């Protein structure tokens, strides 16, 4: 869907390019007011897992990022961090999650794979389908609140590999089927993880879909490509494809409407940010008092070894 829009824009820009022999570009300074940083939440509670919350600060759009390093003390350890990174960190936050019965206090720890490298992790509450989870964050004199649910998971029925084209048949996409429940409105989010390539779940750029065009359909086809793993060489075009012989995990998540709205606007914002022709798409949030999202995920995972001419029923 996003692609259509970018085609329009591309067409327009190219057409203008015929006038590019005349046009010119100037650097300008914009007179925007000073920016007041806000707290950004990126929190999840998955079915069968504890709550995980990343916290960071937003910054002014024109704040430049230098290469200076500063010392930061985290959980008793002193580490050197780039100055801008240190500025984004939210330390000493009181983060709690409640399922209505018990309250879990999340502890700060280090996750070396995921920017901004610090997570608050729960211990006593494990996500369950149908559960309702409230999040409360107290930091820097502010209080942030949010609530989410874990919808029932939907299993993946089967998976197979589709080569990119005849010439390049060792890389390609994964296709699959699932059956959409007829009696409820569902929203899905896809993740993939190639064992050996990815240390974390990654997702295609467009990772959320609503069931509005296929509600209740059995054998709903879906296609995924390998998501963007930031650690891979960005010039490698093949990194977005799955490769014959590798073993991958496909994760089909069910999310609620707030999550869908957040991620849908997130995708569009990330796609259109700064695009002069796109109408600005503000990113939604379900965090009271801050930015970002707090979301529950129903989870179905299938393992699949990529091979040609072989349809596999998912486990």
């Amino acid at each position: 869907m996003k692609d259509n829009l970018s085609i329009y824009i591309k067409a327009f820009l190219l057409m203008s390019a015929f006038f590019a022999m005349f046009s010119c570009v100037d650097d300008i300074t914009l007179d925007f007011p000073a920016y007041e940083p806000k707290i950004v939440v990126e929190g999840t509670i998955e079915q069968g897992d504890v709550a995980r919350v990343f916290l960071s600060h937003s910054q002014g759009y024109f704040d430049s990022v230098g290469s200076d390093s500063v010392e930061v003390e985290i959980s008793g350890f002193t580490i050197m961090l780039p100055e801008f990174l240190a500025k984004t960190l939210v330390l000493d936050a009181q983060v709690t999650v409640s399922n209505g019965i018990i309250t879990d206090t999340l502890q700060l720890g280090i996750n070396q794979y995921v920017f901004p490298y610090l997570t608050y992790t729960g211990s006593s509450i494990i996500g369950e389908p149908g559960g309702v989870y409230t999040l409360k964050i107290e930091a820097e004199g502010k209080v942030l609140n949010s609530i989410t649910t874990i919808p029932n998971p939907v299993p993946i029925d089967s998976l197979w590999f589709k080569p990119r084209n005849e010439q390049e048949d060792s890389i390609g996409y994964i296709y699959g089927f699932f059956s959409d429940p007829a009696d409820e409105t569902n929203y899905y989010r896809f993740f993939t993880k190639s064992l050996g390539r990815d240390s974390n779940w990654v997702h295609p750029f467009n990772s959320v879909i609503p069931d509005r065009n296929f509600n209740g359909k059995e054998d709903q086809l879906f296609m995924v490509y390998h998501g963007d793993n930031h650690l891979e060489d960005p010039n490698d075009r093949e990194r977005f494809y799955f490769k014959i012989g590798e073993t991958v995990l496909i994760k089909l998540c069910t999310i609620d409407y707030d999550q869908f709205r957040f991620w849908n606007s997130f995708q569009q914002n990330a796609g259109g940010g700064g695009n002069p022709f796109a109408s600005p798409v503000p990113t939604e949030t379900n965090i009271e008092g801050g930015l970002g999202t707090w979301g529950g995920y129903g989870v179905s995972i299938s393992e699949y070894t990529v091979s040609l001419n072989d349809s596999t029923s998912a486990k």
Partner: protein
Amino acid sequence: MYEAELVPNISFRLIIIDKSSFICIRLTQQYESICVYVLINSIIFFNHLFVVKHNTIMRIYISLFFLLISNLISAQNYTISGYVRDAENGEELIGATVYVKQIKNGTISNSYGYYSLTLKKGDYDIVFSFLGYENIVKHLSLNKSVKQNISLKLTSKLANEVTIQADKIDRNLSSIELGTVKMPVKSIKALPAIFGEVDILKSIQLLPGVQSAGEGSAGFYVRGGGPDQNLILLDGANVYNSSHLFGFFSVFNADAIKDVKLVKGGMPANYGGRLSSVLDISMKEGNMKKFKAQGGIGLISSRLTLEGPIKVDTSSFIISGRRTYIDFISQPFLSDTSMFAGSGYYFYDLNAKVNYRLSDKDRLFLSSYFGRDVFSFNNNEDDMHMNIPWGNATTSLRWNHLFSDKLFVNSTLLYSDYKFDIDIIQSGFELKLFSGITDYSYTVDFNYFPNINHKISFGGQFIRHSFVPSSVSLSTEEEDTNIGEMLKQYANDVAIYINDEFDVTEKLKLNIGLRPTYFQQVGPFNRYIKDDEGSITDTIVYAKGENVVRFVHLEPRISARYRLNSKSSLKAGFTQNYQYIHMASISSVSMPTDLWVPSSDVVKPQFGTQYSFGYFRNFKDNTYEASAELYYKTLENQIEYMPGSTPGDNVGDNADNNFTFGSGQSYGLELFFKKNFGTTTGWIGYTLSKTTRIFEDINNGKEFPVKYDRRHDVSLIINHSFNDKWTASIVFVYATGNTYTPILGRYFMENGTIVTEYGDYNSYRMKAYHRMDFSLTYTLKKTKMLESSFNFSVYNLYNRHNPYFIYFDFEGDITEGVFSTFAKQVTIFPILPSIAWNFKF
């Protein structure tokens, strides 16, 4: 409703609208009575449908209206009537003034050059005049009705200046027209032209109250209305997209155009269907006397127009073509082996018209326009081929007939079409997008001139619309995947109107009109019902011809002129309009991809109300005219796409399910000062205005300024002829910068993906837009064979870098800790000199 025949032969019709009011109309001639009778009855019918739910004020208004209409009592009167034409080529002159000295009153010729004046028996001096032509004064002893066709001669420059000035007519003071500007093509041609192409749309944007959204944006904005709220008519046919290359050029080839009229306030009842303005453009008829050719050769385009009589003074033709050759010029820069080989852009226009005078009373016209923009782009490295054609086509067949010297009728069959296609082939995938609108319509317009104090026009219009808001199909080498059916929408659009221009006293003139309108969306149509989260829960299927939704509305129009003295007058106007078609723009700039959709069960008709008030004063024997106009306008049921919608959201869904609805208002002051005569002519216009919108889903429901909200807008135009050879002109424009939404902050999610945080919608402004253009024309010595001139023009003389858009760029990598963001401003047109050679033989 009660009707009575009171006196045989002269019939009175008494029609009771409601208990408190009645009308009576006396009609003497049978055929006139039929026409008027049918019209009045249809209005009563509409009224009947309407009055039930309408308020008392409207009822009083209607009663008053019919009382005025009924005041048509004539004494021993005779009629002088005929056509006003150009002596040289036989073309009818639209809006020529016919002025009776003795009674200090007169009329103007209609859109077909016809005039009719009914006066008491007596001696009269009648002055026929038209700007740029020599006046003719006829002395008449009126004791019977007479036909008087008049041919006016062009004034030769500088000559006879004194005599011309002596008879200058104060049309802007005497006419009732409020917020109406006529621009003769001759004066448009005197303005500086970009790349040698005279541009009608750019010229009207130099008038106060008319704005462009800047270079590179299609459409224009009148008194705070959107670009879809302008009714653009070419020989009566709707033109849905009035520009080429995203607004760089207009679709109107000035060589084929006779007359341009813009109505921005006080819209008379014969126009309707749009809220903000009417741009009524008439094509030339073709020279009735002799064969002529004219054209021009410019840097990026050329034009050629041929016209002449088929039978002298009976029938004539005109055919005119234009094509750009940017594609040929750019070819040498794209070698066959280049990555972009085969890419190119061009547009062309064709105008053609024939007309035939069947008799003194009948005339037929057939006119047609066809234009296309074609853009193709190849990226051979990525195996990508893109072809994008779009454009308009219109045809009108019209018949002018004189029932009597007092009743003129024009009836027209019209066809109008706009389409936009994108066809992209990449690596075996083919993606097609299509959107368009097609209209078939019939209109009939009567002009009835019962006596000098009344000018009545009435008529009706039927339009059959078919819309394809958006259709997408995707196919691969292996299989066709139609992602959605082509969802067409059909609608019937009916309007009837009656309008009377009425001299109440010598000083007070009223123009009062009523336009009942009816709009119906019909099947076949599928309506997808969605819940709050956007899921389709139900589908309503309408069969072919089945009613989906219908609207009936009454549009009152009233304007008044009060003549204070021989030098000044006051004018005021009130109009209400409904608009049943809407343009949805997915991008922040107006593009050919904008979709047209009808009012539907989801989209309510746009509704606009405008109040305007003006003071008009002339100086120095009408050499200078000045005016100050105030307006206040409200707009209801405006549409926008929901934030974040994309064209793809229309797939398998009704386009209008993705809209959000709001309202708007605009108010402003327009000052205008113009010099009409002499070797130096020109004007200065200034507009102070404010235009805002409110949408529940945009900017958190807070009021925001529109992109083209202009606090200040100035235009200055000066033309000077030094002698028979040299003329020069200067244009200066200044406008407050366009608004845009600032990006204030950023944050990182998902392992470093940058999310931008926007400020309030349209809360910041780009730099002000200003520019000066200069043009110099050298007319070569006229020979028997050829008349020709060179035009040198410079666009943006002092090379102002006006912002087209602002974008943000960054350097470095956030994960590596070095990152900075810059704002950049793109200017499309810096200083652009050009030269063109224009000829006539």
